[in-house]
């Protein structure tokens, strides 16, 4: 069946280090992948997206990498800051008009 999973449920990094959050997916039919950030007490907020015809896309301090061969998606955060502490969700389009969501990775940034 279709699914989006996570390699690690929690990640702890030192302030200033780079963070890498991973997602694996099982169905290769998806053509659009998205990362969301959810801070405590708030709804998820869009970070960055990538289409399946790309391998890499960069934003401000964030990079998303897509490896379709091994069905793996990652979010890299450069120079992680305390404000980056949140739960990060990957999501992808399924075979219909719905998104398929991962379970989330909690990122904790240590000062």
């Amino acid at each position, binding site marked *: 069946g279709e699914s989006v999973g996570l390699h690690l449920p929690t990640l702890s990094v030192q302030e200033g280090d780079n963070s890498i959050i991973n997602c694996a997916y099982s169905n290769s039919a998806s*053509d*659009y992948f*998205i990362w*969301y950030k959810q801070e405590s*007490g*708030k*709804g*998820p*907020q*869009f970070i960055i*997206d990538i*289409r399946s015809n790309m391998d890499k896309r960069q934003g401000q301090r964030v990079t998303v990498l897509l490896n379709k061969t091994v069905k793996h998606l990652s979010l890299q955060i450069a120079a992680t800051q305390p404000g980056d502490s949140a739960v990060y*969700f990957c999501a992808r*389009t399924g075979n219909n*008009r*719905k*998104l398929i*969501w*991962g*379970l*989330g990775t909690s990122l904790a940034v240590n000062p």
Partner: protein
Amino acid sequence: DVKVTQSSRYLVKRTGEKVFLECVQDMDHENMFWYRQDPGLGLRLIYFSYDVKMKEKGDIPEGYSVSREKKERFSLILESASTNQTSMYLCASTQGGIKGSPLHFGNGTRLTVT
């Protein structure tokens, strides 16, 4: 910026009550969604709507209904609340299809059914 507003931040209801969760977006978005979020289960889609008076079932519609009488407002209705509907409810909207149009979420309504 798009604003999605959920009318209640916290709600406590009794088993069997009829519950209305309201959501309003201010950017004239076509599409609106209701999710519930539970620890360890992620976000699960309850219902969505692509136009006024249009609705489609998501992955877990049982026990819920929705209403979209106006473009900016999407209501989630629990006809007879049960304790297993205790959860965080998130409303979202987007202009285009989900491919290339990120969802904009409200800050959620935490519902407790006792």
